[in-house]
């Protein structure tokens, strides 16, 4: 024990009292040159702040993306019909032709029969039309779905209820609005109990459902991927088949075109999350053999989720490198000032050596001082770094997520920076010749 107590560095470990004494000496010296210490630590402050803030913003962005993907349902496989690319050109030829494409009853039946471990297949049809409430109108999607739709897509019914299985069986003209539609068509009164009109049909409103989150990677296609501000109303699938049949007409520049689509969208739910990817492969295979053209699209949210995680990893590496560079710059700043400080305090070093300080004592003193400087910078940096995401969330409306480990990580890096850049000045101080150090003016 007494031997341990003799070595200055070991003494720091075995004697908290000695550590505290060395630290209070360092703090005293730092406090003696307040402005200089503050300016020196500023580099580390910004480095650490950028680590914390960037991690929070990056984490927030990926968190938002992941939430949206989770909304799609991690157990789901989403099939969509899209208009095949080659049928879009050549308007002259296809002018009066009916374009037939997309997911068919045959596909759905085959999936239901041959792929094991899937529970429900929810088909839906989507029509783009104007939705009217008296003289107010909004262009949006009319989707024919099944009553399980909200549960499948993790969408909450905000007011009233979703339509029931009975209403589906009876082909009743009822509908559920999404929030956007409700706000637009019924800005003052509650939509529940009122009616909306689409083409010639009237639908009684039974409830309001929340808007859909922006779908990742589901951009484009007529099959109906929707942004969160797209107006939507949901009607029973059977009602839609009844009223609109299988063929939609749409007026276009230079004529009209007709589309025959059986299902615009279908959701396959896989019972076991671990099997989603393999089941998706099976579904993909069925669709590939049934369709000659690329008139369908498959979205597997869990795959998107994994992709988002990979993207996040890359994002973190890039942000991490930027932060590392700023910490490097901060570290160099500290080293520079410590070297100047060593020269300035040559006399003090000489005195301490004359009074019995070993080289290791001097190393310890200067190293602790540098680490404290970096550590204080680290603490300030964490505070600033926590404030930035708050401000960003507040003023820019961007989600930020501060993970508990990120301030801890940033702070430890600042301390390590202090050690790394403190060793050289500390050794330089310790290796001075005592006689010359005492003579120094």
């Amino acid at each position: 024990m007494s031997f341990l107590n003799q070595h200055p560095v070991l003494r720091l470990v075995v004697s908290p009292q000695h550590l505290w004494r060395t630290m209070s000496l360092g703090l005293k010296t730092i406090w003696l040159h307040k402005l200089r210490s503050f300016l020196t630590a500023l580099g580390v402050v910004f480095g650490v702040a950028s680590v914390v803030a960037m991690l929070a913003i990056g984490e927030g962005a990926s968190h938002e993306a992941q939430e949206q993907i989770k909304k799609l349902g991690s157990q789901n496989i989403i099939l969509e019909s899209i208009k095949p690319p080659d049928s879009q050109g050549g308007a002259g030829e296809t002018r009066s032709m009916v374009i037939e494409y997309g997911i068919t009853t045959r596909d759905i039946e085959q999936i239901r029969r041959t792929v094991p471990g899937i529970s429900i297949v929810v088909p839906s049809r989507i029509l783009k039309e104007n939705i009217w409430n008296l003289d107010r109108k909004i262009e949006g999607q009319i989707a024919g779905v099944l009553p399980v739709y909200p549960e499948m897509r993790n969408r909450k019914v905000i007011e009233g209820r979703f339509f029931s299985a009975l209403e589906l069986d009876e082909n009743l003209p009822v509908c559920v609005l999404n929030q956007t539609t409700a706000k637009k068509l019924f800005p003052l009164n509650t939509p529940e109990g009122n009616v909306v009109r689409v083409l010639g049909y009237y639908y009684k409103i039974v409830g309001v459902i929340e808007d859909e989150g922006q779908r990742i990677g589901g951009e484009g296609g007529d099959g109906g991927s929707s942004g969160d501000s797209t107006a939507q109303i949901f009607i029973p699938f059977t009602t839609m088949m009844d009223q609109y049949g299988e063929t939609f007409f749409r007026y276009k520049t230079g004529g009209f075109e007709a589309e025959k689509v059986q299902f615009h969208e279908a959701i396959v739910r896989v019972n076991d999350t671990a099997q989603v990817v393999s089941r998706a492969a099976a579904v993909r295979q069925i669709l590939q053999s049934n369709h000659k053209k690329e008139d369908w699209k498959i979205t597997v949210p869990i795959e998107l989720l994994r992709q988002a995680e990979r993207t996040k990893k890359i994002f973190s590496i890039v942000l991490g490198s930027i932060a590392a560079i700023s910490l490097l710059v901060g570290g160099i700043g500290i080293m520079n000032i410590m070297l100047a400080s060593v020269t300035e305090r040559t006399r003090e070093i000489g005195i301490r050596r004359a009074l019995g300080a070993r080289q290791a004592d001097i190393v310890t003193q200067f190293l602790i001082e540098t680490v404290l400087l970096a550590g204080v910078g680290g603490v300030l940096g964490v505070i600033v770094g926590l404030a930035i995401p708050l401000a960003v969330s507040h003023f820019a409306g961007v989600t930020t997520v501060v993970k508990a480990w990120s301030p801890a990580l940033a702070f430890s890096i600042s301390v390590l920076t202090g050690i790394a850049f403190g060793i050289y000045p500390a050794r330089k101080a310790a290796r001075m010749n005592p006689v010359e150090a005492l003579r120094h003016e």
Partner: protein
Amino acid sequence: MQDPTAPIIKLVDICKTYQMGEIESHVLQGVSLEIHRGEYVCIMGPSGCGKSTLLNILGCLDQPTTGDYFLGGQNVAHLNDDDLSEARCKNLGFIFQSYNLIQQLSVIENIAVPLYYRGASDREMREKGERRASQVGLSHRLHHKPNELSGGQQQRVAIARALVNEPLVILADEATGNLDSKSGQEILGIFDELNAGGITLVFVTHDERMVERCKRIIRLRDGVLESDTIVKSTKQKTDRAFATEHSISTF
């Protein structure tokens, strides 16, 4: 620990050579001397005679090129840096011309620095520091910073610091050089007290007043001993009276 009549400092044929480019400069050329417990020695000589180098070697801050140096019976001429530091810490007290206090530390903290490097506890540092401070008459200034003190007071802090580890010998380099005559007188009074209490003092000085009080004068010239004379001080009594008059407490 050893024979009390044995010298506490024994230099045997100490040589010190500095290499300055291609020129070798022989600063000390075979200095041998012994200093016993309780002596009050002044080392004198013209500038460039090697007395600073000799003091540095005596203070274990520098090492001789050849020769042996026994400090309290231990040969310290060829120790490594760590052991040399320990020898300084245990056996030596330093007093400098420009006081050399650490500016960011208070009086008591400055006094306790040598204890700190010996691994003393906080309590030991506080108790011994306070005792030495009162010994040099600075009990009322324990928590002042050096720049709040006069030159004489600063030098008294330095003396307390030199005493705190109970060293074998106190070395001083022009201890009164920066002081006005009144403060210098006070400091000299303290030295007399210390020496009367059995403390060994080895000083490099030009101060005539100090030369008048010391018991032995060593003169150096061109790196060799020119003379080594034992003197009998006649002024000691009057100065002792001066010291008591100025309420400087003794052990």
